[in-house]
């Protein structure tokens, strides 16, 4: 009862609870929050408190004193730390509500990996309820990504979407508001970062942090050989000497570093095409594959998939926000009592 009253002062939200970033779309508005899924926890004796959430907490990653721990509560697209996720969501939900009259209690649509287990989905749902949500609906990430990318999901035509997120890559073939085939591989932006860290340690004998690896990926990372060679100066701790050293990396080296995770994604795409019904495969061959998610921003990744599959591959407009925007569109369907695009727990 009280939640319903609070609901009058709340907006419906679509939350892309990603491993790397959390995006919130407010109904009838737009994306209003795009923050890293990082929480800094301060430990004071037996008491734990939240020191920072989002971008502030991300800046603390790898730079915290003993009593503060900056953690990423999401791993591989699902909750790794339930209570921290709940706190993070609570913070984000209150942040998108300017109204300080009373605690918001919105209806929330959360995007979940299509291959997440029932327990993982339950955890996400419970976490959102714990964060103050009045009602929680779940939608498969590839479906939300397809809607956000503008694919004609309701038509009797196959559309293939590859959502490369922070923790997972979701590949799905969608037709008539439903998922015909879906595959989820635990390879994403985080694995790219890990691959770069491993490459640098192996080839330069230096240790770099995840944040540095991410910066390298964003600035010079490429998925397909290019005539243009980009370079970046990086500082890392030399393992042999134990002191920080500076060195220069180029895009071809990063391409080499990313081979393993990239080939895993390509293999999954090929596998999806193999298992796709022939009519839908023909539709996909005609229109092409659509890439969404932060991973789609990696240079020439569309070219890589296109060369490997021989199909046209396009990157969706604003791929980073596709899932959240798609969830927002699905939110509008809630009042029309059309739940066919939603997924069950």
């Amino acid at each position, binding site marked *: 009862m009280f939640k319903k009253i609070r609901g009058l002062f709340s907006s419906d939200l679509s939350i892309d609870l990603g491993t790397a970033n959390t995006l919130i779309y407010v109904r009838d508005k737009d994306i209003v929050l795009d923050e890293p899924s990082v929480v800094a926890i301060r430990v004071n004796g037996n008491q734990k408190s939240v020191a920072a959430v989002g971008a502030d907490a991300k800046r603390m990653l790898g730079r915290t004193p003993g009593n503060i721990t900056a953690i990423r509560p999401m791993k591989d697209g699902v909750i790794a730390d339930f209570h921290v996720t709940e706190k993070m969501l609570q913070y984000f939900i209150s942040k998108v509500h300017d109204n300080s009259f009373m605690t918001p209690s919105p209806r929330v649509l959360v995007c979940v990996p299509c291959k997440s287990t029932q327990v993982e989905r339950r955890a996400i749902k419970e976490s959102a309820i714990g964060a103050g949500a009045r009602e929680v609906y779940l939608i498969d990430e590839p479906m939300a990504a*397809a*809607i*956000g*990318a*503008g*694919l*004609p*999901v*309701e038509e009797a035509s196959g559309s293939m979407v590859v959502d490369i997120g922070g923790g997972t890559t979701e590949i799905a073939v969608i037709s*008539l*508001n439903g998922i015909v085939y879906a595959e989820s591989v635990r390879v994403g932006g985080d694995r790219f970062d890990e691959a770069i860290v491993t490459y640098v340690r192996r080839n330069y004998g230096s240790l770099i942090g995840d944040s540095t690896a991410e910066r390298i990926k964003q600035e010079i990372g*490429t998925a397909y050989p*290019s*005539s*243009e060679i*980009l370079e970046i100066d990086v500082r890392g701790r030399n393992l042999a000497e134990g002191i920080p050293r500076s060195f220069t990396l180029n*895009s071809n080296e990063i391409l080499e570093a990313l081979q393993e995770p990239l080939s895993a994604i390509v293999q999954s795409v090929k596998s999806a095409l193999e298992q796709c019904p022939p009519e839908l495969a023909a539709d996909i061959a005609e*229109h*092409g594959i*659509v890439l969404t998610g932060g991973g789609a*921003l*990696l*240079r*020439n990744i*569309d070219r890589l998939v*296109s*060369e490997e599959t*021989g*199909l*046209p*591959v*396009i*990157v*969706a*407009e*604003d791929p980073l926000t596709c899932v959240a*925007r*798609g969830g*927002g*569109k*699905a939110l*509008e*369907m809630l009042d*029309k009592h*059309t739940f*066919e*695009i939603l997924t069950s727990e």
Partner: protein
Amino acid sequence: MSDETEVVSPPAVFSGQAFSEARQRLELSIQQVARQLHLPEAVIHSIEGGELDKLKDPVFSRGYIRAYARFLKLDADALVAAYNQQTGNLSTTAQVRAIGSVSTAPGRRHGHPVLKVGTWVFILVLIAVSIWWSQTQFGFDAEERSILNDLPVSVETTDGTTLLLPPVSDLETEAEVSAHVDSQPVNESADETSEEPQESVESVSQSANTTTAETESQSSDEKINNEAEGGQPESSVHSGLSISLVEDCWLSIEDALGRTLYSGVAAAGSVLEFEGDEPLSVVIGRVSAVADLRYNNEPIELAAISKDNVARLSLPL
């Protein structure tokens, strides 16, 4: 993302010629471009020819233009923006619509409008006819019943005699009389308990006789009257109380039914008279103020029953 993008000049309007010129500058044929991008040649032709209506879904069209622009090192963002401007496809998100549902239930078809209206008219006429019929039926019943009520009714008694009862309408109008008569057997039950059924039938006939002159029986009429007269004093006994006061006095008088006949201070010199069902409960707050107290015209001496100048008595003593 667009590492190979070379900002040439962002065109205000979408120009297919920019693609064509850039491709020729790179000395590439349409076939080569199509093979490299894995796009149909028709798409390349449509882009270069500016035939945007020939391109398919806006989502894919944007993707093709962006891919081709990047391949030719053109400003992909500007060209896509120009495409959006020209085609009016500014929304990048799909409009979600529910898949329609088809009912397979038999007979659930959308009929012709004339048939629908005809059906409704038929239903309304049917309702109107049924209402009219029910009203006429009930109306006839009422008339018939009133006619029947006006006829006298003959009743066979247990001793073989036939009594003619008055019409029901008359009985209904004289319900008070019949009710009064019905109460008589109760009073007489001590004497005539063995003949109760006969008595009730007889009493009905007696009540009928009081109202119907032709069938009146003198003896039964007298009996009823006697019973009525005899029963009346037993059910309610009224008595008279008279009090004369020489001074102000507080009085409280209640009758047997609990009705308060008087309660309050009576003025000096007043003579009060009360009637009520026995026994009367009388409280006199100041005995010395009472000059005379009579009950059924018999004087009552208060001095013997008063205490502290207050008398509480129940009449008759």
